[in-house]
């Protein structure tokens, strides 16, 4: 009893410390975004006179270095939505193929999916730029959309494969007997039954593309083609960093992915662990 109590106290203490470490920087970001300039240097961790000025600036763009920020947010939306769409297309088809059809080389395709998932995208970034440059695609949406589709598809394909495997095979067999072909089965049976997973993988791809920094930095050189994270990070290069404004931009930019992330959190870990825990 007392040992258990002691254990629980230690547990709460350690957890409280790590939780503070994990949460405080994000709290500080929010705090900085609502502090008036005069208060920015105060170390006390609460605002005395909170102000929405930085957010008003984000809306009015009344600051010389952020004139394209709305356009950049729109770029983020376009790239993220397109990535989600293409990723759904490639993942659902590939997932069905790997889950249901045993063809020569399917294990190689499986390995290729995992390889692409694990491979750090940064290793390909310079070559990607060079290749896109040859085809005149630098500074266009397709370059980033292609890159993000490549890097989000493996996870999507993997969870689609798992989801399709969990559908009883009898459902398809009876449809085959009724004379339906694979394409009909795919659209009439597989897609409706895996709809929640499709939504999850689309959300995942959206978040990844929305958050992407390196590939946009490499492939877009015109500020009007930047996405929001590249725009935000570029403000950190000036001598007098407008911290309240950068923080407000960061918060605005973070809200959609954080909401989406919480909506699909069970897939975020499950997709990876299901394979790994078995090993």
């Amino acid at each position: 009893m007392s040992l258990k109590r002691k254990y629980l106290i230690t547990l709460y203490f350690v957890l409280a410390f790590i939780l503070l470490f994990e949460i405080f920087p994000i709290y500080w970001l929010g705090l900085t975004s609502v502090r008036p300039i005069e208060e920015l240097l105060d170390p006390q961790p609460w605002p005395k006179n909170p102000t929405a000025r930085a957010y008003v600036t984000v809306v009015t763009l009344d600051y010389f270095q952020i004139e394209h920020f709305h356009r950049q947010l729109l770029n983020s939306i376009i790239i993220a939505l397109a990535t989600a769409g293409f990723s759904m297309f490639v993942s659902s088809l590939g997932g069905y193929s790997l889950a249901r059809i045993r063809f020569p080389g399917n294990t190689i395709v499986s390995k290729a999916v995992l390889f692409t998932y694990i491979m750090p995208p940064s290793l390909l970034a310079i070559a990607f730029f060079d290749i896109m440059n040859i085809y005149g695609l630098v500074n266009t949406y397709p370059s980033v959309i292609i890159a993000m589709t490549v890097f989000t598809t493996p996870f999507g394909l993997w969870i689609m494969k798992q989801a399709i495997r969990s559908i009883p095979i009898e459902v398809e067999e009876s449809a085959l007997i009724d004379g339906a072909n694979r394409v009909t089965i795919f659209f009439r049976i597989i897609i409706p039954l895996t709809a929640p997973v499709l939504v999850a993988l689309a959300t995942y791809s959206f978040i990844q593309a929305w958050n992407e920094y390196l590939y946009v930095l490499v492939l877009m050189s015109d500020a009007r083609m930047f996405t929001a994270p590249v725009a935000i990070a570029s403000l950190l290069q000036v001598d007098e960093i407008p911290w309240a404004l950068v923080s407000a931009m960061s918060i605005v930019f973070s809200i959609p992915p954080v909401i989406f992330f919480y909506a699909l959190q069970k897939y975020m870990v499950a997709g990876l662990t299901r394979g790994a825990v078995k090993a």
Partner: protein
Amino acid sequence: MKIASRVKKYLIGYIFALPFIILFILFVIYPLGYTFSLSFFRKMIGTSPIFVGFDNFIYLLSYPSFNYAFLNSIVLAGIGVNLKMFLALIMAVLLNVEFRGRRIIRALLLLPWAIPMVPSLVTWRWMLDADYGFFNNSFALMGLPRIPFLGIYESAISMAVVYHIWRILPFYTLLLLAGLQSIPREIYESADVDGANWWQKFWRVTFPLIKPLYLIATLLSTIWTLGDFTTIWVLTRGAPADTTNVFATFAYKFAFQVANFGAAYATFVFLLPVIVILIIVLLRRIGD
């Protein structure tokens, strides 16, 4: 007839997998091969490459501070990853016990992982600011000297390690927690019958069962840490004096600031074999 239907089935398999196969060949295999072969060429934007043998590698090895890429990779991956995994294991074990508020704590813990990297790097850079940052302001209040966290090599690279741990600890905690929760309760019950204490249960039961997952997570984290560009580029840009650069940031610098693409490719060629070997080891462990 039988053969024809089998061929048809294979064909459908290939056609459905084709979009991924095309992406994989055009945008994974081709850039990888491109990186490797162009590392032996002098290459700038818009010029055709000229074969220069090992010149790019010689250029890199004689480039001041390039050796820091090796050192920093060891610090970030060798020390940082192990520290992170150790902490994640402790966290997972702590969270594997039922207690009040566990769900809320888990949900809150996800936040650093849920928030995009650039915003979280913004807040870390601001907190670490040499003149006005939260840490230095607090130090000043306590009468302690100010530390230019990102201005000195040792502390700057340590802060990159701290950021990595901060950002991804929740992910590996949940990963290991999922592993812990898959251990059947009966095993612990029989250990209880044998009179095992908490520590014995951890070392004799929990750890051996979680070890495969722990190793996979360590490998995964090592690979992703070695390939991380964003942390260093947004936090320090390689400063002070190019010492905090890693392979990815050096490659970016050579390509877009020095306009020497050959050197950028050669930079990755130092890292690629390590990554590929680690991925192969990992794939063997994961199986299917």
